[in-house]
């Protein structure tokens, strides 16, 4: 076993041992599914948007991956002082390996989280396009890696949890709400339209929706290319900032 696999395994062990965390982090997506799905469903239908649950589920799956991934990254702030991070930083391994192991672990955990939400959504009537399921999984993995890397990058810059609320409200929430997870982004005011196109999450949500339900604003190919490029860029930024951490 090498550094990357053992750090990956560590994240999985931690995840599966923490039942409250698993259940806790399912609360929000479930609430979104039920409240928005059934609350806005009739209006959405009347407005000619079709079945809202079909529209919403990919967005909520992406959301649970986004939050779970960001949190794994942000955990580093805590870890810097009271945790395991120091132990890894004085070990004779490169920072890049540590970063990759952590990120893949965080991404795996968040994809599992997304899969659980997907399974639950089948119960409330979500219909899935099975033929493109592997592609959907690929988008989920990309969302997971991209945002774990983003969380890592942010956490590398912050020294304490004070800035956390700021990041949540001014970065993560906008990333989610402006991604088209909750509403269609083709017939909206021009300014908003531009903003949504600048949001990396938009392409993750759209790609996932396209793969799962066959409906999307961009082509699967466009989504995939954009997501892959962004993930690579974020991995570079994340590793760079991670390598600069001084404790």
């Amino acid at each position: 076993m090498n550094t990357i696999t053992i750090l990956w395994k560590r994240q999985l062990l931690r995840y599966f041992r923490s039942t409250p965390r698993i259940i806790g982090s399912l609360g929000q997506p479930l609430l979104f599914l039920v409240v928005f799905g059934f609350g806005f469903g009739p209006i959405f239908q009347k407005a000619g948007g079709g079945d809202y649950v079909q529209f919403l589920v990919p967005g909520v799956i992406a959301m649970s991956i986004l939050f779970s991934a960001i949190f794994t990254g942000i955990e580093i702030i805590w870890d810097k002082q009271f945790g395991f991070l120091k132990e890894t930083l004085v070990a004779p391994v490169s920072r890049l390996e540590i970063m990759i192991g952590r990120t893949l672990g965080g991404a795996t955990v968040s994809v599992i989280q997304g899969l659980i939400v997907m399974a639950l959504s089948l119960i409330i009537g979500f219909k899935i396009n099975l033929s493109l399921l592997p592609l959907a999984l690929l988008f989920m993995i990309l969302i997971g890696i991209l945002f774990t890397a983003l969380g890592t990058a942010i956490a590398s810059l912050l020294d304490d949890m004070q800035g956390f609320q700021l990041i949540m409200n001014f970065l993560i929430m906008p990333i989610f709400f402006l991604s088209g997870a909750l509403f269609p982004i083709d017939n909206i005011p021009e300014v908003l339209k531009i903003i949504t196109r600048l949001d990396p999450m938009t392409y993750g949500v759209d790609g996932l929706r396209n793969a799962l339900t066959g409906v999307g604003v961009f082509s699967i190919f466009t989504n995939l290319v954009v997501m892959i490029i962004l993930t690579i860029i974020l991995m570079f930024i994340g590793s760079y900032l991670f390598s600069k951490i001084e404790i």
Partner: protein
Amino acid sequence: MIEIKELTKKFGDFTAVDNISFHVNKGEIFAFLGPNGAGKTTTIKMLTTLLKPTSGQIFVNGHDAVHNEHAVRKSFGIVFQDPSLDDELTAYENMELHGVLYNVDRHALKGRILELLEFVELLDRKDKIVKSFSGGMKRRLEIARGLLHHPKVLFLDEPTVGLDPQTRNHMWSYIENLSKKEKITIFFTTHYMEEAEKVAQKVAIIDHGKLVAQGTPEELKKQTKTNSLEEAFLKLSGHGIRDEQSTSVDHMRQNRKMWSRR
């Protein structure tokens, strides 16, 4: 074993460590003392490759800590001031992870882990999650972990802070035993002067980033004409209480209990 030459570390205008030089011999138990904010932790961070010095040289086990950091990292084990175990993993898993990170021979790893857990009297708890351990047990586990890869030097940054006298005594007897049996060099910091006086063969005192004295505890007492290391320490570093600026880390340390979900 450890050699520091004209070591300086500046943070902006502030000089945390100011041109210090000293060396620690193989197998020695060395106490590095100083009031809060004197530069102890900064020095340890440089010795353990977590920080780069502004100028000066550091050699650990003959390797240059700036240019050959991996060789240096393999040479030492460390117990940090704040815990660095993974609380959600078992004692054994924490050890195993360390073994993989330090590339300990896979076939020998299991035996070595069990042997060390036995040494710190945690063998019967090897499959328990670390979260359930007391402060003293965690420290012992950290010591065992720090020894896993056969280091030549063991750094201990305030290892006994927050432990009761029983556990402290117990811990020092482990450490003395270790230095005798395995000839490991021990480099530690502490605020308990009687601890340093009892255990350390050599002492260095740092204040305001400068080395103010070094020698055996006896030499320091003689030099300052005092009866205990504590008095010698106070004479050398003054009685004034240090107003160390509280950092975000202190806040986090305070909030830790509240946050300790791990």
